[in-house]
């Protein structure tokens, strides 16, 4: 099943509180333990992007308003 949604975490704001990771109904998110933000946090990221439906729950609970939520759209492009 291809992903219907996509989220972007602004690493300037993310404080690794894990509320989005916990609340995502589809286990899309995790903290990236390999990287640190400029403030020294492990930022949240889509570990499981195919499962994202663009429901927006992560953005709703994020206390730092770090998340932008997208949905996929079908585009016609020249080959």
């Amino acid at each position, binding site marked *: 099943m291809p992903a219907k949604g996509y989220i972007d975490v602004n690493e300037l704001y993310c404080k690794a509180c894990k509320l989005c990771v916990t609340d995502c109904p589809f286990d899309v998110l995790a903290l990236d333990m390999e990287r640190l933000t400029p403030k020294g946090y492990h930022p949240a990221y889509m570990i499981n992007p195919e499962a994202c439906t663009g429901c927006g729950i992560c953005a709703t609970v*994020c206390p*730092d308003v770090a998340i932008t939520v997208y949905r996929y759209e079908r585009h016609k492009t020249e080959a």
Partner: protein
Amino acid sequence: MVLTDVPTKIVYERPESLDPRVTHYCPGCTHGVAHRLVAEVLEEMGEIENTIGVAPVGCSVFAYNYFDFDFVEASHGRAPAMATGIKRVLPDCIVFTYQGDGDLASIGMGEIVGAASRGELITVVFINNANYGMTGGQMAPTTLPGQKTTSSPTGRDVNRQGYPIQTAELLSTLEGSAYIVRRSLHSVREIRQAKKAIRTAFEVQKHGLGFSLVELLSTCPTNWGLTPVEARDWIEERMIPVFPLGDYKISPAVADLKI
């Protein structure tokens, strides 16, 4: 011609009226959620350019750095009085205060009761996190019986230190109060309810129906000694029994309001 699926449709993005600034709030602190809801509501109402906020003393003392509209800084507890002064001379502006438990329910109790009883046409966003956050976690008027804080280190002893104040209940007894509700920020569902309440509160002001206040149960992971996720559970399990969510005062005029 090729059909491709691209994630281009923005379903949610950060409100423009929140300054692009990292907040000083702790990880997981729901002040950020409350700020976002206020910004979204005022944007949706088209009132961003017509709003003046009054910042308190507390963790949100620098709230004026995070919203992209006019703000003033009150002394501790006096925000409702400052807001009264502003609204009385600029009645067409939306004027709101954003206050914590010490600011509103301790030092500011005189001012909030005064403003509510006078039916001042201001909106109050009241953040209840059961302690004094900014100063390091002391007991607040909203601290739960038995709750350990830095000034009730063995747990709040109701015999010596009294019982918590239930602000929504208290203010709902005043005739000037038009809309007094308690919501929470500890789950997606509650956050959505909170946004509706904040919207109603500002509409009450816009329609001149009286004093409006939304009490929001909020997390304080740092001073509660819990992770952000655990802190939300603490609201559910410990705070809600003492501070039940609900509508405490809806004046008849507010009940008729169509939003």
